[in-house]
Structure formats: C-alpha cells, structure tokens
C-alpha cells in the first residue's frame, strides 16, 4: 500500500528525487534468537494483522510449519537441529524479509514503483504495480519474495508499514511473549543488542554475535545469534550481497550501453546512407530488360 505518511527514499525502476524535508529515524526490528522459544505467536499475529491464511500443509517431521515462506506466510519460524561443540542444539530462527539498506529486489525490479524503500528503512512491495516477472527473487540474496498462484504477484513481510506509519509497532513485535522481538530506533536497538551479547558471552556463548550483514548495507531486521560464528546453522548466508550479475544486468552501465547500442545502430545507418548512398542498379542496367 502506498503510504504518504512514510517518505519514499528509493523506488524501483524510477528516477526521482526523494523528499528531504523530514529527517526520519532509521528504524529496525531486532530478533534476539537467544530469547526465542519458538512459540510461533509472531507467525499467527502476522497472519491476523495482514489477513493471510496459508493452506494447511502436511507435517514432514519437523516443527517448521508451514514448510516454507509463501505469499500467505510472510514470516516463518524455522527449526534446525545442529551439532555444535559436540552438543545437539535446537536452533530457531524467525525467517522473513530483512529489509536491506541496499535491497537487491529493488535494484532488480523493472516495474516502476513496484518496490519502494521508505526513509526509515522499510522495503515494501506495492502489488498494484507488480507485474510478476520474478526479477526481485533473482535479486534477493536471502530468497524471500514469494509469488501468489492467484495473481502471480510477489509478496513478503512489509514490516507492517501500515502500522508503522501510524506509530504502531509491527504485529509480530506486539505479540512476542518473551521480548525476543524489539522494534524501534536501529541505533538504540544496536546498543541493546551489544549489551545482550555481553550477557550471552558471559553465559558461555563465546561466539554470540550480531547478524547485520554489511554486504547489503546492513539490514533493518537484524539478529542476535548465540552461535554467531555459524550463521549458516540458522539458514542465514555468511556473506550476503547483491550478486555482481544483478549489478551488471540491472546496473546503469548495462542500461546505458543498451541505449548507446540502439542509438549507434541508428546513427551508423543514417551516416552510411548519406556517405555511401543506396546500392542500386544503374538506370541503363535496369532498362536492359525492357
């Protein structure tokens, strides 16, 4: 949804000057994995607020349910059983859009305004402009966008931009019973997370770390990971970045080269015709047969 009370700072496939009269607070959601008990209340709250109902699937032996993110499930508790330091660890991660500062989806999107980034950091899909091409999912380093079978459009977590725009916290934050989720100024949350990391390290989680990947300019959903040296164990890429292929294919160099090529072909044709002239038979040659 387009929300005029949130300033847009980036818009897919558009050249525009973002409004700058306001200085907006950089906001974020901090997911403290060490506090999460995997109750899935956030999943239920997300469904409720966004009015989504995923299909009832089949149990395939693990707690993760539904099996994957979808157009109807914008956030998903993923459960992993990992052997860490000789101990079996049950890891839980609330998966969903990380709201990158440098969003690969937005860079790849060819439809003007189908993906916007608000000045606070929220990356939002505007389905009314989405054409369903799937470029966003090739641009995303976290495999987040999902497509509806009904309308072929892309959906993902909006960080409850509609709630945030009127000063409310996202639905998942509102419902979390263990304060594993916090929402607010990114700067303050980072300080809160650093504090938490000290606690965790004291409690024996020597590798506890913040997951705020710099490869995508940092994210507006970031994690405290008790086993921060092994993000892969939580299903998170170690060094996520927007692929160089996306930079090449959707970057201004390729676009300019494309336009230049088209003009060059046109200009070359005009010049050649002016300089060389048409290839035609001489009058008398054409006349020989008549």
């Amino acid at each position, binding site marked *: 949804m387009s929300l005029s009370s949130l300033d847009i700072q980036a818009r897919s*496939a*558009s*050249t525009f000057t973002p409004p700058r009269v306001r200085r907006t607070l950089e906001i974020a959601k901090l997911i403290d994995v060490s506090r999460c008990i995997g109750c899935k209340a956030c999943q239920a709250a997300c469904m409720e607020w966004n009015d989504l109902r995923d299909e009832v699937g089949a149990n395939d032996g693990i707690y993760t349910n539904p099996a994957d993110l979808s157009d109807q499930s914008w956030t998903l508790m993923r459960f992993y059983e990992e052997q860490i330091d000789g101990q079996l660890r049950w890891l839980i991660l609330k998966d969903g859009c990380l709201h990158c500062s440098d969003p690969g989806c937005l860079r790849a999107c*060819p*439809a*003007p305004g189908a993906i916007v980034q608000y000045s606070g950091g929220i990356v939002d899909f505007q389905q009314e*402009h*989405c*054409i*369903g*091409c*799937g*470029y966003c*999912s*090739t641009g*995303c380093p976290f*495999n987040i966008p999902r*497509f509806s*079978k009904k309308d*072929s459009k892309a959906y993902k977590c909006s960080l409850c931009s509609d709630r945030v725009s009127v000063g409310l916290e996202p639905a998942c934050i509102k419902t979390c019973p263990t304060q594993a989720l916090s929402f607010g100024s990114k700067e303050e949350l980072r300080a809160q997370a650093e504090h938490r990391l000290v606690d965790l390290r004291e409690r024996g989680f020597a590798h506890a770390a913040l997951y705020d990947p710099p490869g995508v300019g940092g994210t507006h959903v970031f994690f405290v990971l008790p086993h921060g040296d092994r993000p892969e164990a939580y299903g998170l890429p170690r060094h996520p970045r927007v*692929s160089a*292929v*996306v930079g*090449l*294919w959707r970057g201004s160099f*390729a*676009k300019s*080269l*494309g*336009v230049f*090529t*088209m003009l060059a*072909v*046109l200009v070359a*044709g005009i010049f*050649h*015709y002016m300089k*060389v*002239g*048409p*290839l*035609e*038979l001489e009058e008398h*040659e*054409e006349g*020989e*047969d*008549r």
Partner: protein
Amino acid sequence: MSDKAYPVEARPRYDQDPNLVLRYSQAARLAHWAVAVSYLLLFFSGLALFHPYFYWLSSLYGDGSFMRVLHPFLGVALAVLFCAYAARIWRDNLFLPGDRLWLEHSIEVMSKRAEVPVEGKYNAGQKLMFWSMLACILALLASGIVIWRPYFAPAFSASIRRAANAAHAGLAFVMFVGIGVHVYAAYWTKGSVRAMTRGYVTRSWARFHHPGWYRKVTGDVSTSPGKGNPA
C-alpha cells in the same frame, strides 16, 4: 464527367512478367513477416523490461502484467516460426568456397568500392546473419525458458536465473544489432524490399546481386557472371 470506365492497358501479372524472377515464395514471405512482427513485439516489451525509460512501451500491450505474460509466448512463436523458416532455407545458407572472397572484401562491398560475384542464393553477409540470428534465437529461447514465470523459473536456482537473465538481456542486444544491420541492408539494397514484400526481383537485379542463383533458376547462361567486377 464520363459515364464510361476507361480501359486500362493490359499489364502482365507479376508472375507472368518475363522481366521478373520469383525470389521468395508466398510461404517464405509470410513466415518472414510473421517473424518480423513477433520480433518487434518482443523488442518493445523486452526493452520496457530492460530499461525503465522505456517502460511506457508497456502501454502498447495494455499494462505491464499482460506484457510480461505475453513476452515469453511471443518468444516461443518467433522461435517456432524462425525454425520452420530456417528448415526451408538453411541449405541455401551453407557456406560455399566463393564466400571467402566476399567476407575478405566485405568492407569494400559495403562501401561500394568493390563487387564480388555471389555464387548462391545468398551472399556471405546474409549467410552470416542467418546463422548468427539462429544462434541468438536458440540461446534467447533457452535463457528465456529458465526465467519464464510461473511455468519453468521455479525449477531453477536463483543463481542460474540470474545468469539466464543477464545472458537474455545481452543476447537481445546482439540480436538487436543483427536485426538493425538486416533492416538497413534491405533498405540500402534497392529492390530487396520488393523481393521481401511481393516476392519478385527484376532479372537485372538478380544478375547483379546473385548471378549464380540467377543462372540456376533461369537456366540463363548467356550472360556473364554478374555485372560486378570481381574484386
């Protein structure tokens, strides 16, 4: 004002005019123009998806969503039509010994500083165009299938789709340059547009541009091979 129709001097039909030679059959011309129309529709929609400055071209198709749905189907149509066309003409596009001379002097030929007698129905430049367009179309088809939502794309990983997307865009520009050269060459070589639209060329045109082919289709060996001087 006369109430009588004026009689018109009887003119021979195209296929009866002894001065004309059939160069492209009706089926070949229909296939050619069907390919041309689908290419144009593909080019405009592809350009709209490639560069946001040209997104307005999506209004030609109603809206962006419909354009996105249409594009791959048009692509398959073009590939099928082109391959059907290619099945008829590929033999005429096999390189002959004489093509080497044309290729060696292609710059001089294009700047009208030299003429090279052509052995077959097509000159070496046309043959080169044929094979490169065939390769482009097959590669565009393959990369397009990889990124075709919702039917095939979900079967491929994001990194494969990224590579296919980039390759698809790159190949499209190679093809654009090829088509640009093709369209210009047809406009530049006076008489070819009529061959592509009505199918016929004059005997002198055929003798001048494609003397080998002219002798083959007319059995006319009396004329010297080509008006042009061998380079």
